[in-house]
């Protein structure tokens, strides 16, 4: 496949970049020849037909990810609605609803050639009007991330039915990573136009272009999708039906897998303590890839309004006090990438290891705390801090206990608070009532979309969840992030992000800990369940029984 895409693909080796303008042009030409569903993942020979049971947890609360991007919604939505592009593991773009794409030299417009002969599930033709409507009226207005992703889009021109041209006020290189079906679904204009889009019935019973059609949703029990036999990918879908079962209890999911009632589940469907046993069992397959477009990182954000945490020495001491090698084993059972900075290695075209490092060294931590003027008291303790974490699964409980133990060794008394999600959000982002906050920070497929909000001073917005809550404000950092956001040249953009990683680790408003690996589990006879970084968020046209 690399050959076909010529200059574009070539393994991202530092200087390379997943999507460059010449590459985009080449891809556009080659894509027409292919026309396949997922050109980068050769589908294995598989038995046609069958009904496959997968589980999604927790239950999605909508069927379309245009208005709600909660992870379960994204998983189900992507089976029925599609985006303009697909991505491979190196985050190179591939054709989906768009067969070709070209960014102008100045980065101020992107032209998409759309796939001919695509029909919505109700039989209406898919055209450029749907693309324009989806981006301007739906994604830019109502999508939780869309407002920032498509902020620079001033207009979408539709010179003919199969061409859509995005006009931008400034270059927006990050936008090209946000066009997958689960992130930015294209929805039918004829269904949504002129209605109250937020309460449109199609949000719960989608009309899409994807390989599966919506049949039924019995809340609390199951969702039934059936094969779209008029799908544009001629070989797809392989299955007859895809049934999603809602199984709320993790132990019950383990039992359902073992009893053969469940064939597939993503985003860590079983407790991490069970993963080893499932991996070794011949009855199951466990895949660790397939979340490279989410890149959810477990981090600890520090409230710099706290005068103790405002001291750089204290922040460095916290890092030195943590044995993160041990943490990966004890807390994550080895199922995590240990972070060196704010960007994980799953974004190879931006990652650098060349950043200030803080190896485990309790003595150095103690020395730094002494230097900061926090000598140990008679009981060996220096000061107390409060760590708040959302009550989502037991990993955070284990991590909090672990940190409490490690910090205690250097004389910091950590008080642990576990709160349900709305309480966590209100405390941390609404009231800044925290010292340390551990939470999943999603980098997404591009740091401009994902990471910038945690480090950018202009993202300090009390009451808005998952933005800069530390109060960190650095003019140099702001400049780097703003420059990277509008830099069309991949090499120069990479350089900005390298400096971003170095500065983030020098200033340490956030302690990056781990990228947890959320496994996908399938029974032994299931094929093509992780064919790219979309993982279980893929459209699953090629999903099959062996």
């Amino acid at each position, binding site marked *: 496949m690399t050959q076909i895409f010529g200059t574009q693909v070539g393994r991202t080796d530092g200087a390379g970049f997943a999507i460059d303008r010449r590459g985009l042009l080449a891809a556009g030409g080659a894509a027409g020849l292919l026309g396949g569903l997922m050109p980068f993942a050769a589908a294995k020979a598989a038995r046609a037909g069958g009904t496959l049971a997968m589980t999604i947890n927790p239950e999605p*609360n909508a069927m379309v990810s245009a208005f709600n991007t909660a992870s379960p919604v994204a998983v189900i939505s992507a089976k029925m609605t599609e985006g303009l592009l697909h991505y491979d593991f190196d985050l190179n773009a591939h054709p989906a609803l768009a067969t070709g794409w070209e960014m102008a030299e100045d980065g101020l417009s992107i032209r998409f050639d759309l796939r001919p002969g695509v029909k919505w599930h109700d039989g209406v033709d898919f055209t450029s009007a749907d693309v324009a409507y989806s981006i301007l009226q739906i994604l830019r207005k109502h999508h939780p991330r869309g407002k920032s992703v498509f902020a620079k889009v001033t207009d979408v021109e539709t010179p003919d039915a199969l061409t859509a041209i995005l006009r931008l006020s400034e270059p927006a290189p990050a936008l090209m990573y946000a066009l997958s079906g689960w992130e930015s679904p294209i929805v039918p204009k004829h269904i949504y136009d002129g209605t109250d889009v937020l*309460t449109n019935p199609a949000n719960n019973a989608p009309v899409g272009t994807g390989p599966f059609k919506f049949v039924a949703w019995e*809340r609390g029990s*199951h969702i*039934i999708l059936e094969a779209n036999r008029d799908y544009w990918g001629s070989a797809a879908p392989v299955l007859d039906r895809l049934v999603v079962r809602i199984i709320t209890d993790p132990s019950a999911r383990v039992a359902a897998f073992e009893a053969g*009632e469940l064939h597939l589940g993503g985003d860590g469907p079983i407790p991490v303590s069970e993963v080893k046993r499932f991996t070794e069992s011949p009855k199951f397959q466990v895949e660790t890839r397939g979340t490279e477009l989410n890149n959810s990182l477990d981090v600890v954000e520090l409230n710099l309004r706290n005068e103790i945490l405002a001291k750089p020495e204290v922040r460095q001491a916290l890092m030195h006090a943590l044995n993160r090698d041990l943490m990966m084993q004890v807390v994550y059972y080895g199922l995590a990438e240990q972070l060196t900075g704010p960007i994980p290695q799953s974004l190879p075209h931006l990652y650098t290891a060349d950043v200030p490092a803080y190896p485990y060294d309790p003595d150095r931590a103690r020395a730094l705390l002494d230097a900061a003027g926090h000598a140990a008291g008679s009981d060996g303790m220096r000061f107390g801090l409060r760590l708040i974490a*959302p009550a989502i699964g037991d990993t955070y409980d284990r991590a909090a206990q672990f940190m409490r133990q490690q910090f205690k060794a250097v004389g910091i008394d950590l008080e642990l608070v576990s709160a349900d999600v709305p309480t966590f959000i209100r405390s941390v982002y609404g009231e800044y009532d925290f010292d340390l906050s551990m939470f999943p920070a999603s980098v997404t497929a591009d740091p401009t979309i994902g990471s910038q909000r945690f480090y950018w001073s202009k993202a300090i917005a009390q009451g808005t969840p998952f933005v800069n809550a530390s109060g960190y404000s650095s003019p140099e950092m702001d400049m780097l992030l703003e420059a990277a956001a509008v830099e069309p040249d991949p090499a120069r953009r990479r350089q900005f992000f390298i400096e971003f990683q170095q500065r983030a680790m020098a200033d340490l408003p956030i302690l990056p800990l781990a990228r947890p690996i959320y496994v996908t589990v399938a029974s032994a006879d299931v094929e093509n369940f992780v064919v790219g970084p979309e993982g279980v968020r893929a459209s699953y046209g090629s999903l099959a029984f062996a």
Partner: protein
Amino acid sequence: MTASPPRIPLSFVGKRLLYGMMTVFAIAVINFFLLQLAPGDAAEALAGEAGTASPEYIAELRAQFGLDQPLMLQLWAFVSRLFTLDLGYSFRYGADVADLIFARLPATLLLMTTSVVFAVIGGIVLGVTAARFANRLPDRLISFTGLLFYATPPFWIGLMMILVFSVWFGWVPTSGMENVLAFNTGWARAVDIGHHLILPALTQAFFYLAIYIRLVRAGMLDVLSLEFIRVARAKGISEARIGYRHALRSAVMPLVTVVGTNVGGFLGGAVLTETVFSWPGVGRLMFDAMFQRDLNLLLSILILSSVFVVVTNFVVDILYVLINPTVELK
């Protein structure tokens, strides 16, 4: 034992109806304020799940949910909806609250009826047996088993039963209400649902069973020492007949009260069982609504639950008269 037909005065019914409505209304208003105490709102919960959200997105959600209105206006909107029996719309699920609840109600009612019937029958048979053989081997065995069930968390019993009967033996399905891959219809579907019902109903029943056995046993021991039982014995009536026909009628009163409480609280009382067995009932819906701060949905379920309690209490009062005509309703 023949009795004149029990009298249920109309004034009693009217009074209870009025009190019942006032109770439900008071519960609704108190719940409204109680739920405001939970930190965070639906917009934040939704944004929390999305992982990202711009300030405009949050503001838009708040406006859509009506959360930007002053509290008293929200209360007024809620109360006026209540009086028109309109439960409102859940933006969280994109569906009418009434539809959401009533779609899940049959599953809960099925689970409740089966498990309560099982527990009542089992409780009476075992309780009477235990009382008749008080402090002898059958009593000790029954009491010990009852205590064991009572002391074991229902979700653990459920998980163990799944492990043994579903995973090891493969006799029954692990979870869910029906085999969603089979697309059964008609009788095949009914049989399939019954098959899925066995484990959750047993799990839920075991917990009640333990209480019922103890209640019936204690009641029976009290009654069996009374004069009229001695008279019955003297007449030469068989022990089994004395137990079930004569003594039970008096001894069962506390059981009726407790069963009434269990039935009344059932909407939320089966959350654990529903979770372990992925049973699509109202309990789960309520649980999720709490964590998602879908207060409108949650309030509606709580109101429905209070209606349930009021109605069951009423039925229990009537049952007293039917079972024991010496009770008088005022």
